[in-house]
């Protein structure tokens, strides 16, 4: 059985739709991981021990275990205790939480690195602690870690392929559907890989622009 790419055009619409879903999942999970990362970082740094310790355990578990396992837990596990998430939501939540933990580590270090004088000055001007964090400290901290957070988001795009395993019809599963009809795994997986590669290039370009803009705002 040789290679025959002539069957590919018939399924390009399916693959293309899958690529759009991959982008949707990636964007949704990226946004969740960004704000989740800030949220976790603030809790880890400022919340009382009683709140901090369980979060620490959660972070530990999420950093020490494979994403695929976490997706299985969220999708197949939560059903058994009565929480029935649609596959798409489970995928976005799983990817988002996983990368939120990694982003939180970055943001924590960055918050600590912001000069103490910034907080003191903000408090002197009459801002509350929360306001000072939100409007003065966190924006500066986040600005410093945009490049590594961007790397995490590129990793997130590639890991979004894993949600095919819980049945989200994104790029990988769309390729599998086409393979199911044509029995041409090599051709369609290579096409899917090309789509990922192109999305990856696009995402890198967007991230570079954001980085440049953030640098200019300094």
């Amino acid at each position, binding site marked *: 059985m040789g*290679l025959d790419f002539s069957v590919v055009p018939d399924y390009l619409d399916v693959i293309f739709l899958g690529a759009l879903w991959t982008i949707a999942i990636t964007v949704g999970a990226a946004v969740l991981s960004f704000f989740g990362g800030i949220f976790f970082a603030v809790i880890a740094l400022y919340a009382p021990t009683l709140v901090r310790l369980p979060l620490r355990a959660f972070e530990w578990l999420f950093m020490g275990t494979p994403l*695929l*396992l976490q997706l299985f837990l969220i999708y197949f596990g939560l059903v058994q205790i009565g929480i029935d998430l649609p596959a798409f939501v489970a995928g976005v939540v799983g990817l988002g939480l996983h990368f939120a933990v990694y982003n939180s580590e970055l943001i924590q270090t960055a918050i600590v690195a912001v000069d103490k004088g910034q907080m003191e000055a903000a408090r002197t001007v009459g801002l509350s602690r929360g306001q000072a964090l939100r409007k003065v400290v966190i924006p500066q901290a986040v600005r410093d870690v945009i490049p590594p957070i961007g790397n995490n988001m590129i990793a997130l795009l590639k890991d979004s392929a894993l949600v095919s395993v819980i049945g989200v019809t994104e790029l990988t599963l769309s390729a599998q559907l086409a393979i199911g009809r044509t029995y041409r795994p*090599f051709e369609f997986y290579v096409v899917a890989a090309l789509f990922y590669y192109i999305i990856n290039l696009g995402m890198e370009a967007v991230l570079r622009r954001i980085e440049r803009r953030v640098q200019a705002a300094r």
Partner: protein
Amino acid sequence: MLTVYPYFLKAAWVTIQLSVLTTILGLFCGGLGAAARLSRFVVLRYIGAAYVSFIRGTPALIQLFILYFGGPQIGIQLDAFEAGVIGLGVNIGAYMTETIRGAIISIDKGQIEAARTLGMSRGQSFRKVVLPQAMRLMIRPLGVNINALIKGTALVAAISVVELTYTAQRYIGSTYKPFEMFLISGILYMIIIYITSRAVTWLDNKAKIV
């Protein structure tokens, strides 16, 4: 509940085997990749750059599927375990290429110049001066790569290798105790990763110049 433990331990052993073999193959590919990227020959540099770019630009899962499901079409017949080791090894090799290359180019150019001045050949100065220093620098970042690789071995569950994640998935489906199953496999993963990172720290300390 107790009856599942032996299966998890057996599965953990498969995960360990996968991790060790993948690490060896990954280091091999990483060394070759770095050599190609730093080569004097433009063609080799391009091949190295293309390897890194394509592998890092596409999901490991897709690479695994191309190899395992697509392989037979181009005459490559592998069982799931072999495909897992080769696919993951070539994948992590691209990341290791960059780690190794980064360590090598961070060695001060003056070191090579000095070695060359003393009469060493290009190869000698690389082997005896640059590489020993670079090795010391790459231990920690390679440890990070290996850590990611161990978690990455979970992907082979998707081609039905009966390792930890596959086993956990099976028992999450059949026992109605999802969190316990997650915890058992999670703890086993963390033990493997913990031991590995201790070994890396030990090696790193040993390689430090006092």
